[in-house]
């Protein structure tokens, strides 16, 4: 079993960042990632729920692969894809200030609204 180095891989963190966000800025690719989060699969298995051609899905998977979001292992003629989680952590870190902002703002709304409910 051989692990392929992702095509176009580069050590530049900014370029890596761009590739991750570009890869995520597409509904089909996000659905592919959601499927991979459930379980690894072959390209044809992944393509099955989509009403698009195998080459079209394969192209989306390549974009994800370049971003490091998909890791492909080759076992004989079988290409199996699995989720590459590390770049997702990067995205989570990016979104963290937004998440904190909203979580905290909703806490504040709860304090305000629940206090009013308690004091009719």
């Amino acid at each position, binding site marked *: 079993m051989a692990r392929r180095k992702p095509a176009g891989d580069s050590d530049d963190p900014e370029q890596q*960042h761009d590739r991750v*966000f570009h890869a*995520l*800025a*597409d*509904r089909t690719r996000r659905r592919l990632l959601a499927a991979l989060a459930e379980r690894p699969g072959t390209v044809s298995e992944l393509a099955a729920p989509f009403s698009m051609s195998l080459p079209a899905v394969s192209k989306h998977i390549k974009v994800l692969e370049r971003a490091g979001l998909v890791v492909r292992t080759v076992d004989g003629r079988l290409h199996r894809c699995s989720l590459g989680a590390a770049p997702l952590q990067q*995205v989570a870190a*990016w*979104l963290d*200030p*937004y*998440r*904190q*902002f*909203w*979580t*905290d*703002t*909703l*806490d*504040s*709304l*709860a*304090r*305000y*609204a*629940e206090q*009013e*409910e308690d004091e009719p």
Partner: protein
Amino acid sequence: MTDSITLTVRRTIRASAARLFEAWTTPAMLKQWWGPQGVECSDAAVDLRVGGHYHLDNRLPSGEVLRIEGEFEVIEPPHTLVYSWRLGPGGSAERVTVRFEVCEGGTEVSIVHERIATEPARDQHEHGWLGCLDGLVTLLEAG
């Protein structure tokens, strides 16, 4: 247009959907609760109709005021609000959907924040959001 990064946050609050909808759309009430701890809502204006403009001024602990503003796209009281969201001058248009759904124990408030721009977001953080949240963390840890 390409859709970009989306964030979803949920919270159950022990109050009616109508009450929460009102709190979310009434300036006098927004001034009392809006924003994370440490941020004061120094001014709020809401023109509650489709296409109507709103703004929320957020005074950070540093004294800097950041204005969030946009226009309403969908208004369905007391369950749904959709509006554009721009942070600071020249901020790119993001979109926020707020839903108030009756659930066990009160109302589930869900926020879907879409079209989070990856480049301007970094500038926003440099302008103080992040600093304000860092301050918050310090505050919580100290308490």
